[in-house]
């Protein structure tokens, strides 16, 4: 190696050892932010999460997203699950930040560890008009399902769990709120077994 090349290699090595520790964290931060923007645009990751520094940057957090959860038998008859305990609620809220199948599956698995019992009476579904008035009842009615402790391990889970993921938007000019069913995740009994 010539003397000049040696000199330049030494300078580059010195500059690298000086600047690499200073610049590596900003580089990581930028890469994480780009990834967050990509996931936010294409996979519905909330702008509030994931390191993109987009807090208070959009109505796409847990207040604008919600789920309706149903248990369905082999004939497709479904009943809504209510009064979710804290653990599945936490997992559902977590999944709402990044609403992908894998995250809802975690919540569904936790739901499937519980014993669910139906209330004695069927409950009608009220029809609500745009002005928040009840105008009648829908053709369907449900049994309200509530948790009743943990399910015995030896008892096999035989039902599907359907999780409807909804997005809510609000038009500040017309004062109309609008809900859209974004996706329904269906988990079969095989998937839900521990």
């Amino acid at each position: 190696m010539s003397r000049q090349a040696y000199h330049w290699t030494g300078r580059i090595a010195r500059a690298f050892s000086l600047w690499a520790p200073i610049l590596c964290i900003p580089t990581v931060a930028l890469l994480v932010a780009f990834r967050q923007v990509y996931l936010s645009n294409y996979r519905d990751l909330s702008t509030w999460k994931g390191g993109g520094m987009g807090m208070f940057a959009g109505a796409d957090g847990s207040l604008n997203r919600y789920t309706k959860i149903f248990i369905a038998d082999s004939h497709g008859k479904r009943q809504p699950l209510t009064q979710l305990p804290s653990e599945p609620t936490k997992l559902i809220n977590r999944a709402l930040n990044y609403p992908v199948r894998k995250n809802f599956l975690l919540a569904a698995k936790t739901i499937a560890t519980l014993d669910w019992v139906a209330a004695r009476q069927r409950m009608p579904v009220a029809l609500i008009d745009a002005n928040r008035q009840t105008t009648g009842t829908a053709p369907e009615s449900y049994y309200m399902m509530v948790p009743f402790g943990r399910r015995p391990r030896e008892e096999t889970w035989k039902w599907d769990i359907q999780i409807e993921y909804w997005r809510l938007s609000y038009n500040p000019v017309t004062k109309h709120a609008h809900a859209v069913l974004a996706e329904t995740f269906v988990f079969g009994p095989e998937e839900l077994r521990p």
Partner: protein
Amino acid sequence: MSAVDRERLFWLTGMKLLVLSRGQALLDFVKELELVQMVSLLSLFLAVIFTFEHWLFEATARVCLLLFLLRPNSIRSPVFWLALSLSATFVIIHDWQAADNHKYLLLYWLWILFFCHLFGEPEQKRRTLIFNARFFLCFIFLAAAAQKLASPTYRSGEMFEYFLYVDSRFTAFGKLIGIDPTIPDAVQKSIGFFRSPFSQVIDNDLVLPGSDRARIAALVLTWWDLSLQLLIGSLLFLRRPRTDKFAHILLLFFVFTTYLPAPVFGFGWILAIMGFTLAKENFPRIAAVYMSCFVVILLYQVPWREWVLAM
């Protein structure tokens, strides 16, 4: 001048002297501080007080605090910061999608302190801190501004107006600015129709009982927040003493006003640490105000929302 006036003047003069002498004392104290040492200490307290909610990080931070109390020199060791950085990295990787943005920022800052203490020369340590404080302040504010400008739900004022109705952190603030508390209650009840499986909203469309006052407040909040963030990020990016000074004043205004309604205290604290890092050498008076920020942010944790809502 009456006796009452004389007494009032006496007390006012006394108070003014007390504030000035305390202010001067704080200024002298800040001037004497060594930057790296002070920033390390503030960051350790940040990690302990506004911590990651995970047993691994909580345990590491507490052990580090104990170690510091027993052997103050340990805070200068890169191993000390490596332990905090590694445990924070584990927590973030474990739950990356649920971690708030300011937790990422805390993670980055802990790694910066590790690299800072890795260097032997004090000048290199100082440079690492100052460079990264400026980079992250620009990054946070410009990235946030870009995301806000790109978001239709932000630009339209939808987000803040909706929050004034349904977010418990904002409803108390809404009451303070004259939004009738029955309005958020009615909106929340209406939203309940969407969420309940026992109600079916025709065409999934409801008129919410919103108020014009909330609409105006939301628009003011929207554009105030965006312009302030854009201005702070851009001014710091220019790297001129005059623009820096103006950026610090705006950043202090941002910290003092934002973290009262928005209870993201860890974020406020870390912004103040970064601002302090940048201001310490060139603007000691501003650095002294940053010092008072830390106390103010702690005081903001009083349950004022409950007091307001109970009124």
